[in-house]
């Protein structure tokens, strides 16, 4: 085991290489996760602050306004 950890005398180079990769990739994952959660919380708060309100203007493309009254994220879990 000590033999393995010593990496033939190159432990000071091999292990930091693996540690840096782990830190960067896990850190990025955590930051992404937190950013997504914060954004979803903000969106929910905004949507519940103005519930089921119908749009006063017609859609630009003239299609029937099916989205009105449903919060945009309601269908996604």
């Amino acid at each position: 085991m000590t033999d393995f950890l010593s990496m033939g005398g190159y432990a000071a180079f091999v292990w930091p290489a693996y540690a840096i990769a782990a830190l960067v990739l896990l850190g990025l994952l955590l930051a992404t996760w937190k950013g997504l959660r914060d954004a979803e919380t903000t969106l929910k708060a905004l949507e519940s602050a103005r519930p089921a309100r119908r749009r006063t203007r017609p859609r630009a493309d003239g299609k029937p306004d099916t989205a009105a009254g449903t919060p945009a994220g309601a269908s996604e879990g």
Partner: protein
Amino acid sequence: MSWGQSMHRFANPARFLRLSAALLPWSAGAAVILTIVGLYLSLFGSPPDYQQGETVRIMYIHVPAAWMSLFVYTNMAVAAGAGLVWKHPLADLFAKAAAPIGAGFTFVCLVTGSLWGAPMWGTWWVWDARLTSVLILFFLYLGYMALVNAFDDPQRGLRAGNVLLLVGIVNVPIIKFSVDWWNTLHQPASVVKMGGPSIDPTMLLPLLVMAGAFTAYFVAVVLLRLRAEITQRRIQTLRLSAAGEGAQG
């Protein structure tokens, strides 16, 4: 841009969100499994190099990270082209979502290369063609991220960023062929080259598994980041429309 137009632009990623929800568990699962197998092969299942001893294990992080730095950038540049030509909002957002991941891989590539160079070359850094062009790639990522966030109107930031990505693509072949075009300290390619890999299978396998792990990680994280970007767009649209109504009052 009227509210109606902006709703039309940003309400359409619903199909993407469904697709990403289906893809996410697979890419995340693949990333975890491939990382475990890849780490086992890199640290236990492969022999030390006859010249470089145990430092060769740095390669299993360094080389896949370098591949990813080019792969992610190329994907971003393709998305930037699609964003500029077809004005597809998801293409713009993909580039923005991928940039920090690409920068992360490039950083890992540079640092692990340094940690490998110190014992094997006797130096942490040299200003040769390969190392310098990869450092430029890192700055391209950082420059893109700064540029995208430098405008009050996010659309203008994304468009400026797309132009930078397309100009910067010239650096990708320079990195790839720098070891052939110039006399560098960095060794030439031994995996992706004419005539097939010249590396032993016991070392090629962990390399490919780690590359698969990094790719799966990239897919999973970029899907999460895209989801966050789309959510931010909705927040912005809701806030703008609320402000508009307030003004009409």
